[in-house]
């Protein structure tokens, strides 16, 4: 475990020193959410003026909150995955991964070290994204809900880091990471209920959606936006996300080669 913390400290120091990387990780999600605010404001239907003596017309509803929080979660998911995978692939191309393993670090320490290194970044990302979304869209959530929102986005970021580590074991250089984006990340936008409710999807697409961690994060976010919810509505999805993280940790550990 000591080795994992040594590697984690090195990853944190590398992240701190790489200003462009930090800016991309922390500022890019905020810019995207701000752009979404502009977009949602533009597409929201104008209020229909009341006509005296007539029954009020049914107003087409557009709830930005229905989309903004799942989309925020997706942005964190996407960036954490891509950036972590690229950073770990760089370790391989630079030869430092081989050197670490030959010097006496074990692969489980490397993987755990990367996860520790990204804990801080994931926490910051989740905090910033939620603060901005709540502020820009005037969400009137109780403090408890905001805390649970933070927890789910944070956990999703950790799952994304694990996914990035796992995928990086199949990539020989940074370019190899990109084909995995349309393969793994983009389908989750369509199949996990972010854009279209999953019950409106064909059965096969709905079932495929269960493969993506974003589905469980989205389930929690949707539940949190209901007027009343109970912890019993949330924990199965939290448990699945947690198991996802543990499962990916083991998968990454088994696919990373100590010996060619």
């Amino acid at each position, binding site marked *: 475990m000591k080795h994992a913390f040594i590697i984690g400290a*090195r990853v944190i120091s*590398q992240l701190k020193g790489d200003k462009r990387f930090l800016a991309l990780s922390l500022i890019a999600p905020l810019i995207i959410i701000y752009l979404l605010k502009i977009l949602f404001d533009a597409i929201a239907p104008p209020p229909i003026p009341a006509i005296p003596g007539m029954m009020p017309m049914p107003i087409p509803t557009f709830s930005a909150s229905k989309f903004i929080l799942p989309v925020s979660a997706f942005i964190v998911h996407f960036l954490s995955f891509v950036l972590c995978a690229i950073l770990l692939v760089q370790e391989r191309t630079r*030869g430092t991964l081989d050197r*670490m393993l030959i010097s006496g670090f074990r692969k489980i320490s490397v993987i755990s070290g990367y996860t520790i290194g990204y804990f801080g970044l994931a926490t910051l990302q989740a905090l910033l994204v939620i603060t901005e979304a709540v502020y820009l869209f005037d969400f009137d959530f109780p403090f408890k809900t905001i805390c649970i929102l933070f927890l789910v986005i944070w956990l999703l970021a950790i799952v994304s880091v694990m996914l990035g580590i796992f995928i990086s074991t199949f990539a020989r250089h940074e370019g190899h990471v990109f084909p995995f984006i349309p393969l793994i990340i983009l389908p989750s936008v369509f199949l996990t209920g972010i854009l279209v409710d999953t019950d409106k999807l064909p059965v096969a697409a709905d079932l495929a959606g269960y493969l993506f961690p974003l589905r469980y994060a989205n389930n929690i976010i949707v539940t949190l936006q209901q007027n009343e919810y109970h912890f019993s509505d949330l924990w199965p999805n939290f448990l699945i996300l947690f198991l996802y993280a543990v499962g990916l940790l083991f998968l990454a550990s088994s696919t990373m080669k*100590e*010996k*060619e």
Partner: protein
Amino acid sequence: MSNSVQIRSLNKSYGKFSVLKDVTLEVPEGSIFGLIGPNGAGKTTLIKAMVGALKINSGEISVLGKDPLKNSWELRRQIGYMPQSPSLYGDLSAKQNISFFGKAQKITNLEKEVDKILEFTELTGRANDPVRNFSGGMQKRVSLACALIHSPRIIFLDEPTAAVDPHLKQRSWELFKELSRKGVTIFVSTHLMDEALLCDKITILRQGQVLAVDTPQNFLARGKTRIRYEKNGQTHELISGSDTSSLAKEMQKIGLDANIAKIEIEQDNIENIVLQIVNRTEG
């Protein structure tokens, strides 16, 4: 003298492509052992197999009496490895890089050891500079320091002086000699023939096969000396062995008389000798 490395009939292939073919080697303890061969000869693959980073198809490898694949974690405390590329963190300083890789080992008083190794590799003056600002040669020196931080009994150096300026190259070899005097076995791969002469023993590897193993002196003795002289306007050539006594005998045959206008003596260098061995094997 016992052997630090013993390899018997080692074979390694990637699919149908055979990279190492029936390699057999013995590296005496405390020696500087040179592995020479052109690019693509299999030098890096052989070194990776010896440090336990590569699975082999068949054969046996013993490093310090242990199988590097079965006892890789035990061995990693006793072996040092300097890869061909510097393999360092550019954002970290020389000191931080050495310290980071040192933390993988159980080193008592690591900070003191880092300072010692910085002094040994003459990096003290730039210890706190980020490695990304170093020249290629300086980065290689940091890489060497990382490989030496845990005082290994054997160190594997993969082309340590490739693309290094002559001064740094000379200094690097002085360091290797100093380590060897301290009893550290040095296994060094190179494609530079002049470096072969600095080794205690060399092996020639070509297309994954060991062509010859011997001391540099014995390799040089396999060479020829060509004596060309001009007598009465005609050029004559005599060929002798490389040793000085056979050269003297040949000179006596000529007899230095007033008609000999010019004498040229040309000895095979290590490069010619290696090329002859390679050509003979290919022929």
